[in-house]
C-alpha cells in the first residue's frame, strides 16, 4: 500500500461508518467499506477487514442494528442500519469532531503566522 495514505485515527472509523449508514440507509459491510473508500477518494488506509470490528462495537452499543438479507447480485449478506441512538451519537460525535478540527486549524495556522517573528 502506498505510504502517502492516511492512517486512521482511533475512533474515526466508527464515526465514518455511522455517517455512511446515516446517509445511505441499510448497507452490508462490503458496501460500507467501498463507500468510505470512494468518499475518501482512496486517501485513507483501510483494511476492509477491520470494518467488521467497528461494526460489532457499534452494534453492541446499540447504535446500529443488523439483519441478514440478499445483496444486489443475489448474495446472502448481513445488512446494517443506523438506530435512533446511533443518530444521536453521530450528532454528538460530529460536533465533537468539528470542535476538534476547528481547534487544530487554529493551532496550525497560528504556527505559520508567527514563524517570521
Amino acid at each position, binding site marked *: 500500500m502506498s505510504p502517502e495514505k492516511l492512517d486512521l485515527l482511533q475512533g474515526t472509523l466508527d464515526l465514518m461508518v455511522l455517517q455512511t449508514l446515516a446517509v445511505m440507509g441499510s448497507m452490508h*459491510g462490503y458496501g460500507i467499506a467501498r463507500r468510505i473508500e470512494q468518499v475518501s477518494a482512496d486517501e485513507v488506509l483501510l483494511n*476492509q477487514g477491520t470494518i*467488521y470490528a467497528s461494526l460489532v462495537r457499534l452494534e453492541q452499543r446499540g447504535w446500529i442494528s443488523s439483519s441478514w438479507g440478499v445483496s444486489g447480485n443475489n448474495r446472502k449478506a448481513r445488512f446494517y442500519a443506523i438506530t435512533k441512538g446511533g443518530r444521536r451519537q453521530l450528532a454528538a460525535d460530529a460536533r465533537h469532531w468539528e470542535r476538534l478540527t476547528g481547534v487544530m486549524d487554529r493551532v496550525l495556522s497560528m504556527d505559520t503566522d508567527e514563524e517570521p517573528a
Partner: protein
Amino acid sequence: MSRLRRAFARIVSFVFRNRQEANFEDEMAAHLEMAIDENIERGMSVVEARRQAMLRFGTLDQARYHHREARSFMRVDLLMQDLKYTVRTLRRDPGFTIVAVLILGLAIGANIAVFSVVNTLMLRPLPFPSAQQLVWIAPPPAKCGLSCATYSTDAYDEFRMYTRSYQDVTGYFAFSSPGNLSLKLGGAPIPATSIDVIANFFNVLGVTPAMGRTFTPDDARNGAAPVIVLSNAWWRRQFNADPSIIGKAFDMNGQQTTVIGVLPADFDFGAVFSPGAKVDAITPLNLYGPPRNWGNIITLIGRLKPGVSMGQAVSDAEAAAPHMCWNNNNPNTCGTYTGAVVPVALKDYVSGKLRRALVVLWSAVAMILLIACVNLSNLLLARAASRSKEFAMRGALGAGRGRIIRQLLTESLVLSSGGALVGLLLADLLVSWLAHQGSVALPLLGLLQIDRTALAWTVLIAVSSAVVFGFVPGLRMAAGNLYEALKDSGPGAGLGRKHERTRSILVISEVALACMLLVGAGLLLRSFLHVLDVDLGFQPDRAAAIKVDYNDNAPTNDASVEKRTAIFQQVISRVSAIPGVEAAGISDYLPLDRNRSWGLPLPKGVKPPEKQPDGPLVYVVTPGYIRALGARLKGRDFTWNDGPHSQPVVLIDSGYAHYLAQLANWHDDNVVGQLLDNGPGPGLRIAGVVDTVREESTEAPTGWQIYYPMTQATPSAAELVVRTQLPPAALAGSVLRTLRDINPNQTAAEFRPLQLLVDHANSPRRFFMLLVAAFATLGLLLAALGIYGVISYTVTRQTQEIGIRMALGATAAIVQRKVLVGTVRLALIGVIVGAVASLFAAKLIATLLFATSPWDLPTYLGMGALLIAVAAISGFLPARRASRVDPMVALRSN
C-alpha cells in the same frame, strides 16, 4: 448505559462464541465474493480479481482477531488457551504435578482448618441473634472459686430492678454436677446432666426451640409441674429423635417430668458456657423456692438495649451494685457486691482468653504456607531452567514478556487450585475430627465447620500463594536472554549461576521459617512437660471417682446425718473390700471440677484483719477421702466418731494454715489442734493440715481449701474416690455392682479416672501444643523436601563438573563431603537467621509459656541441631549420588 449494554453483549457473545464465529466467517466470505464480483465486472481476470479483493481486505486472521477482540473477552479466550496448555504440560510431568499439589494441599489444608477454628472462636459472633448485645456479668477474678463468681437470687432481682441499659437479664445455676439427672425408662436409671436456668434464659439469648416451647415464668413457680427442655443431641441419642416427644412425661429424679421442647442443633449449652462438658437438658430454676437461701448460685447474662455502649452498661451496673443484697432478709448483706458487678462482652468471656493462642496458631500455619510457597518457587525455578529453551522459542516466535509471565502465573494458579482442592479435603477431615473432640475444654469447638467464609478464605490464600510462588520464577524466566537460552548453553552459564543464588536464598528462608516454627513448638512442648510435672497436691494416677446416688431425707438433721453415715459407711467398707482397692472415700466436690466457698473461718480470739482474703474452697468429705485422693496429711484424718454432737473438726490446706499461723502467731508446726471461730458454737478444731491441692487449674495454685466431715456438715453430692493398684478402668464394673447392690436406684454413672480431670484441665494447652507441634513437623518435612530438591538439582547440573574433578583425582569421599558441607552451610545460615527471628517472635508467645523462658537455650540448641541433622540427611542422598558419578559417563553425556 451503552457501556453496560456492551458488557452484557460481550458476555452473551462469549457464551455463544461458536455461533458468532460461524456467522462472521459467512460474513467475510460474502464480503470477498462481492469484492471479486465487482472486480470481474471491472474487467479483471478471475485470479486477479481474487488477489485484489484479498489485498483490500487484509489478512483474514487479522480481521478475525480484531473482530473477536471487539466482540468478546480477548483475555478470557487467552486464559482458556493458557489453561489448556497448562493442563497439557502438567500432565506431561506427573511427578512434579503430584508433589507440587500435595505440598500445597498440606499447607492450604492446615490453613483452612486453622482459619475455621479462628473464625469460629474469634472472628465470628457467638451463635445468637444480635450477639454483640450479650454481656456476661461477673465479679473480678477471686480465689474462692465459683461462689465468688456468682450472685444470689436476691441480687439478681435487684440488678434487674436498678439497671436501665439492659433489655433483660438472665442466668443459670452454676453448681449443677454432671450426671445430676437420673432418667428411668424401665431398666437401670440412666445418668444425664441438666442445667437449671432462669425462665427467661432462652428469650434473652434469642434461642428458639426446634420443637415445642421453652420456659415461661409459670414453669418456675412454686408447685409448678416439672418440665424439661431436651438438647438436640440427647433427644436424638436417648429418645431416637422421637418426633412426637413434646408432651410426653418421663421419670426423672423420681418425678414425672414433661418434655416441653427440643433445642435446635446449633445451640449447645456446654459449647458456650462450660467448654468440654456435655449438657443434655435444661430445666427451669425456681428463683423463689429453696434456691433463695443458697447464697451465690447464679451467673448473670444480660442483653443490652440497642445502641447502649459497653461503657454505659458498665457504669449502669456499677451504680446498681450497692443496691444488691446477698440476702434481703439480712440488710447487713446489702452492698456486698459493690465493685463486683462488671459486665464484659459475652464473647470475650467465652473466648477472649484464647485470642493469643489462636493468633499464634494462625501465624504458625501462615509460616507453613510460606514454606510451601518457597518450596514451590524452588520447584518451578528448577523446572523453568529446564524449560528455558521452550520459553526462548516462544519469545522468538513473538510471544510478549507479559504473555509468558501470564502463562507461568496460569500454571501457578492451576497448581494452587489443585492444592486448594486437596487442602479442602484435608481440612474437612481435620475440622470434623476437631469438632468431635468433646473432651477438650475449648468453647464452640463442636460448632466447627468449613463454612462460606472459610471457602472464601481458601480462594484468597490459593490465589495469593500462586502469585507469591509463581512470581520469582516468572520474572526470572521472562527476563531470560533469548540468545543465551537458545544456543545450547552448558552448565555454569551466567543464568545458571543466578538461578543458583536465588535458590540458595529460598532454601535459607525456608530453613529459617522452619526454625521459627520448631522453636515455637519446642517452647510450647517444654511448657506442657513442665505442666505435667507440677505437683498437684494429690495423685491422679490409679484413682477414679464415681457419683454415688443416696437418699438421706429425714425429718430431722440428726436423723439425716445418721442415715447418711450408715449409707456411706456401708459403701466405703464394701468398696474397700473389692480386691485391688487400696483406699476409698467420699467427697461432694472433686479437685479441678466444681467448687464453692463458705466464707473465711479465722482463729478464735484473733481480731479479723482489715482486708480479708478470699475464703477457702469447701469440701465435705468422709474419713478416708484424703488417703483415696493421695494427698499428704499432717495430723489426723476424720473418723466416723466425729459425729454431729462431738467437737466440730476440719482439715485445712497448708496455704491456709500458713496464713492462719501468721495471723495468730502460731508456729507453722503448731496449727494442728488450734480452734477456728465459726460463730456461735464451740469452734472448729483443726484436726490436720493437708497439702494444697490444685483445685481450679493445674498451672497455678488458686484458692485455699477447707474440709468438713460429712457427719457434721451437709454434702451437696457424693463422689466416691477409689484408689487402686490396678488400672482404674478394671474396677469400674465391680464398683458399680457394689453400689447397685446397696442402692438399686444407683445410676450407671461414669467411672471417671482422676487423671481425666487433670487431662481436662490441661486439654486446651495440650490441644494447642499438639497442633503447633504438628505444624512444626509439617514445616520441618517441607523444609527437608525443599533442601533435598535443591541439592539434588544442583548435583544434577554439576554432573559434568563432578566428572571432571573425579577424572582429575578427587575421591568419592571428597565429592560427597563437598556436597554435604554445602548443604549444611545453607542450613546453618538458615538456622542462625531463624533463631534470631525466633528471639523476637518468642516474646509474642511468652504469655502462653509455663515455667519456660522464651529464650530457653536448650530448646534453641536442640531445635537448631535437629534442623541441621535433617538438612544433612536431606543432603546425604544427592551427595551419595554425586560420589557415584562415573567420570567417563559424565564427560561423554550432554
